[in-house]
């Protein structure tokens, strides 16, 4: 098929303009969508954090009764679900939204309206999940919701139905993000931006989207199968009727292991952006970094039964998956050594962003080493389902993902909001989070090795566990203090006028060539990319300005639309129909959804044109 020429349309034809809050609800601008992803992620983080604090209070002393055992089940389940699906992924996808199009020199993503739909499916899906609280029954079968435990016979409340349908809804959104950014990165790079010239954050986004594309369908199928079991009386996981007790675990972890790379690879990318900027050196081993990302992604689909070592699959299966699991340490080690080599001999600036990036390295190594310990199948039978596992995955998910996300927040804040976060508060924030994190989670290695199982609501005295739990609880409150300082820093910063310079860190990638925040159309003229670290190159070897790849002229923009929000809303309402076993509500809103999708398929958006102001770009 030939490329479709852009249509000739008069300036501001047909497209409606929205103001105030409506301009956010109807936006199709990737930068605003990124901002909303991150704010919504921080909002859900408050819930997930509060759940964690109640868990820590309950475990402060033996035989404690802060909450009942049933409530405790709901707390650890919702803590896990929230932190993975409603905090880690959305915040990272938010940064990908806000930054990747700028880094490749594009004006927007490939499908702007679908991008808005992804956002609203995540936001409304998350609220749907939490609304289970109003129905008196939150999900309580653990974040991986193992069947048959989560089947009707053993989990009678509506909680698991909310889990099944809520995660399907937000999962559709994530899958669409995957398709959108794969096409954006492959098809919409500026002239000269070859694959091996892309910044590593964009590389990590590309690989993450590939993982999403192949990992989310299996979890969707799993959730559908269980929904059929629970709502329509199917027998997929009902062992007495021929169902399988292992099917859920297989399908879940075929998704679940790539999922942990979905939330760590973008953090790898963030670290690879920040370390060269604040070490004032070129990233060491660029090609091997991109290669390592691809190899990790490939291997991540071959390790899922290391989550099932205790299922009794036999020595052959366990050995095979132990080996593939340990293999992942090779590309990961390459990345760690490349970061260290980048730092070697550099002129290091200890900004808040850099402190977070630097802390990532040792914390992730600790999580990686305990991961290797867990990958040894015979040893895993000892560690399995103990606090050692809890310590391990918090070192990779908190010490890795969240430290990376906070580094990104300090680093890209000026580019997204036009303001600089306060560096002094930033350092208080960093040190309290760093110390609080280690005080909370390091003792869990020990309580785990002392035999404390995860997910127990209380414990008897005399096991030697009490002191380690008390240290963990103290650490959790130090963490809380650190996060409250971040909140204070955010509020303080938003009260200041937007006066951030275009390039506060002397950055290397294209986003720093734009004003802070970037203009609506991103680039007044599509840039011509002449090498790796494109903006740095122009600053060092050119005149500090990007070469344009096109003459100046009016820029075509997609129209804002409320349709994505409308589609997401009817899907969620149909979800309520399913949970409440109401064919009428479910059917009605499903029909409305398809009517809207039909309209979207036929829609022909003529968009509008804007003429960039002279000097809209930096310098």
């Amino acid at each position: 098929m030939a490329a479709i020429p852009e249509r000739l349309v008069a300036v501001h034809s047909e497209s409606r303009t929205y103001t105030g809050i409506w301009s956010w609800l109807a936006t199709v601008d990737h930068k605003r969508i990124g901002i909303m992803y991150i704010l919504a992620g921080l909002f859900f983080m408050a819930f997930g954090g509060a759940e964690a604090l109640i868990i820590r209070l309950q475990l402060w002393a033996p035989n404690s009764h802060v909450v009942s055992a049933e409530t405790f089940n709901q707390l650890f389940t919702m803590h896990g679900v929230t932190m993975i699906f409603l905090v880690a992924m959305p915040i990272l996808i938010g940064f990908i939204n806000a930054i990747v199009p700028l880094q490749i020199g594009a004006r927007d993503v490939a499908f702007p309206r679908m991008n808005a739909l992804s956002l609203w499916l995540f936001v409304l899906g998350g609220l749907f999940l939490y609304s289970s609280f109003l129905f008196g029954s939150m999900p309580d079968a653990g974040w991986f919701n193992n069947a048959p435990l989560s089947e009707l016979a053993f989990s009678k409340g509506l909680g698991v139905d909310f889990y099944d349908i809520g995660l399907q809804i937000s999962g559709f959104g994530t899958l669409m993000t995957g398709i959108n950014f794969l096409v954006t990165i492959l098809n919409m790079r500026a002239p000269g931006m070859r694959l091996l010239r892309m910044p590593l954050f964009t590389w990590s986004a590309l690989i993450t989207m590939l993982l999403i594309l192949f990992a989310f369908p299996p979890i969707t199928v799993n959730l559908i199968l269980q929904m059929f079991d629970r709502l329509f009386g199917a027998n997929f996981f009902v062992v007495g009727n021929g169902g399988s007790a292992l099917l859920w675990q297989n399908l879940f972890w075929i998704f679940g292991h790539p999922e942990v790379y979905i939330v760590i690879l973008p953090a790898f990318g963030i670290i690879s952006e920040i370390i060269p900027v604040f070490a004032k050196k070129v990233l060491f081993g660029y090609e091997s970094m991109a290669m390592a990302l691809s190899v990790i992604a490939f291997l991540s689909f071959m390790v899922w039964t290391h989550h099932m070592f205790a299922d009794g699959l036999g020595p052959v299966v366990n050995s095979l998956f132990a080996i593939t699991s340990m293999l992942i340490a090779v590309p990961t080690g390459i990345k760690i050594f490349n970061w260290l080599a980048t730092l070697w001999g550099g002129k290091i600036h200890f900004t808040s962003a850099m402190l977070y990036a630097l802390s990532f390295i040792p914390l992730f190594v600790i999580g990686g080493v305990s991961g290797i310990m867990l990958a040894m199948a015979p040893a895993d039978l000892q560690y399995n389902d103990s606090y050692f596992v809890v310590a391990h995955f918090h070192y990779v998910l908190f010490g890795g993902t969240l430290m990376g996300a906070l580094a990104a927040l300090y680093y890209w804040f000026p580019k997204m909001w036009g303001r600089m976060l306060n560096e002094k508060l930033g350092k208080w924030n960093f040190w309290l989070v760093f110390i609080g994190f280690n005080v909370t989670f390091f003792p869990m290695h020990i309580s785990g090795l002392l035999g404390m199982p995860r997910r127990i609501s209380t414990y008897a005295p005399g096991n030697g566990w009490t002191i380690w739990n008390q240290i963990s609880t103290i650490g959790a409150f130090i963490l809380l203090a650190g996060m409250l300082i971040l909140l204070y820093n955010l509020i303080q910063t938003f009260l200041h006028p937007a006066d951030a310079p275009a390039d506060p860190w002397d950055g290397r990638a294209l986003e720093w060539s734009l004003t802070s925040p970037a203009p609506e159309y991103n680039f007044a003229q599509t840039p011509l990319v002449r090498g790796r670290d494109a903006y740095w190159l122009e600053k060092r070897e050119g005149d500090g300005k990007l070469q344009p790849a096109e003459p100046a002229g009016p820029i075509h923009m997609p129209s804002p639309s409320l349709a994505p929000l409308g589609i997401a809303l009817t899907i969620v309402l149909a979800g309520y129909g399913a949970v409440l076993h109401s064919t009428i509500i479910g059917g009605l809103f499903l029909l409305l959804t398809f009517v809207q999708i039909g309209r979207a398929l036929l829609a022909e958006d003529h968009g509008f044109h804007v003429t960039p102001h002279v000097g809209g770009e930096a310098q």
Partner: protein
Amino acid sequence: MSTQTHVAVHAAPATELQLPKDNRVLGLWVFLAGECAFFASLIGTYLGLHTATLHGPTGQQIFDLPLTTIATLILLSSSLTVVLGVQAMQRRDARGMQIWLWITALLGLFFLEFQGYEFYTFYNSGLTLHTSAFGSAFFTLTGFHGLHVLFGVFWILLLLFQSVKHGINEERTSKVFVMSLYWHFVDVVWVVLFTLVYLAGKVG
């Protein structure tokens, strides 16, 4: 003005050959890759559970191969008719395209009618979603394929409606082409299901 700008983009001294720029076509290919993972998961589930028939009927007992073969031929020939439709569209023959798309949608509907009849007879011979894990897996796998066909039929009808009302232009051309890719994919999935579910199931 805008067209000139656009031409100039391509005339700029790019240092490499750019990929084709139609996002919609690449987007659909990427979507189909995800669909492969979706059907692979469903097929894997079916293969894991198809022997768990309990006291209910087995596939060997109830599959009606001649009927399924006819349905398969109907669905596969719709891949030919959709290609003829796209070719007519490329010749800017709006009427030819509409006729072939009508035929494609009708063939899809015939296939769905077969599937409805099949589900009905299986139901009468005692196989339901509740009977056994085999029943659950069979109806879910073939049912999701049927839903894909149904969605494709609606998609074709929408595009027909639009082309009758507004004729062919370049953007709509790309929409029809993308739909045809989807339609081929749904047909290819059926080839896999016909082999793994019906042929292998009949052999036992």
